[in-house]
């Protein structure tokens, strides 16, 4: 019976060791992908900075002529859409649940206010979570959470903008995890459509010319038309930046989760080995006892002359 316990423990140790190898591999993969994801976040910055600049200048120069609903917003907001960005896979600690909880909180607040909502889920985890709980999902995307491309951001952007213009949504918010550094990320809620006044205002509609003195822009075609083609691009760029941030955060979360899983596995292996060694020692002791007492029992029936029991009998009486 004691040998059986030892075998069971050996099996458990082997299985924990196998799990540890997997979590260690996932940790290393996630760590190497963080760097790549960070580079992609950085590579997207020049485009979004320039496009923000252009939007500001255009809004200042031709803002009055532009009737773009993306800029104006709606007087009465009844439906708020939340673009919820999570991962496609689990095993990344509290990454998915953090975003889901934030989105769910916003939705519940809207419902309490008597307003309606819609969810646009990005990543299979969010889709599963909200579908299971019976939330109203307007659209869902997935399959690219760890390395999103601009084409995917554009698909989401076009869909969201089309629904907004059609009046299905009155406001669109982004819920995602912002990547600050490999050690810190935070769940944020950012307005997407209509565009924030703060991001649009601040431009003076002028730019330095070659000599450095501010002067008016020339436009081709007119500012309103440029703005109308530019604003959807701007929304797409914002979504793309959010997707990249989310991907980098996902890798960081996964690396941390897998690191602690590996540490836990190590701890477990250590404890189990101790228990196993003790069990083995116990079983060896028991076996020796059995042999000794067996030999004793056998010798008890034979001639007493062959074994000298004197000292043993003395020991027994002294105990």
């Amino acid at each position, binding site marked *: 019976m004691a040998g059986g316990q030892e075998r069971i423990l050996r099996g458990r140790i082997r299985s924990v060791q196998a799990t540890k190898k997997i979590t260690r591999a996932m940790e290393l993969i996630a760590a190497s992908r963080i760097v790549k994801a960070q580079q*992609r976040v950085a*590579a*997207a910055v*020049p*485009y*979004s900075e*320039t*496009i923000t*600049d*252009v939007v500001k*200048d*255009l809004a200042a120069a031709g803002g009055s002529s532009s009737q773009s609903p993306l800029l104006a917003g709606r007087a009465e907001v009844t439906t708020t859409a939340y673009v919820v960005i999570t991962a496609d896979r689990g095993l990344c600690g509290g990454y998915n649940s953090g975003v889901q909880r934030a989105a769910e909180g916003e939705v519940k607040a809207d419902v309490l206010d008597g307003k309606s909502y819609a969810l646009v889920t990005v990543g299979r985890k969010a889709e599963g979570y909200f579908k299971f709980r019976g939330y109203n999902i307007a659209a869902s995307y997935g399959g690219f959470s760890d390395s999103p*491309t*601009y084409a995917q*951001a*554009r698909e989401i952007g076009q869909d969201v903008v089309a629904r907004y213009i059609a009046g299905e949504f009155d406001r669109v918010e982004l819920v995602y995890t912002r990547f600050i550094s490999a050690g810190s990320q935070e769940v944020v809620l950012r307005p997407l459509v209509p565009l924030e006044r703060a991001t649009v205002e601040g431009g003076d509609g*002028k*730019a*330095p*010319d*070659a000599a*450095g003195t501010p*002067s*008016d*822009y*020339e*436009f*081709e*075609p007119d*500012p309103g*038309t*440029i703005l109308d*083609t*530019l604003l959807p*691009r701007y929304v*797409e*760029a914002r979504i*793309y930046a959010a997707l990249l941030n989310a991907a980098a955060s996902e890798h960081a979360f996964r690396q941390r989760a897998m690191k602690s899983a590996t540490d836990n596995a190590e701890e477990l292996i250590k404890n189990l080995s101790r228990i196993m060694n003790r069990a083995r020692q116990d079983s060896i002791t028991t076996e020796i006892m059995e042999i000794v007492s067996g030999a004793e029992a056998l010798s008890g029936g034979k001639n007493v002359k062959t074994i000298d029991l004197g000292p043993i009998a003395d020991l027994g009486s002294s105990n």
Partner: protein
Amino acid sequence: MATMQVELVSPEKVLFTGEATQVITRTLGGGEIAFLPGHAPFLGALTECHTRITLVEGGVLDVAVHGGFVQVAGNTVSILSDIAELGDDIDRNRALKAKDAAEELLRKEHDAEAVSALSRAHARLSASGGIVGTSQGAH
């Protein structure tokens, strides 16, 4: 010789940045436009086109730009494009096939999708060494 700074930026990365003496591109409905150093501040929406950047160190950088924007400010020309491909990276065979397919489709019906596919193919072919075997020739 006067020069200016040129940046060609796509959402995923900066495709090109450097000194140039001339940039030729095509605005939405406005035809081709060339920027020389010292150009006045300018904002324009671009159509699918073959953009040419004349480099300071000689030679011309050919780029197929599939829509986007151009901003000229302070002697810097910034071209923003969702999709832009450097001439050397373009798969000519694929572009030729796309052009033929689009032309085939246009013979049957007028389709907005096919029109833009055709202009994309033209931009690619023009940027990667000229359009051969087409009635339109290079832009």
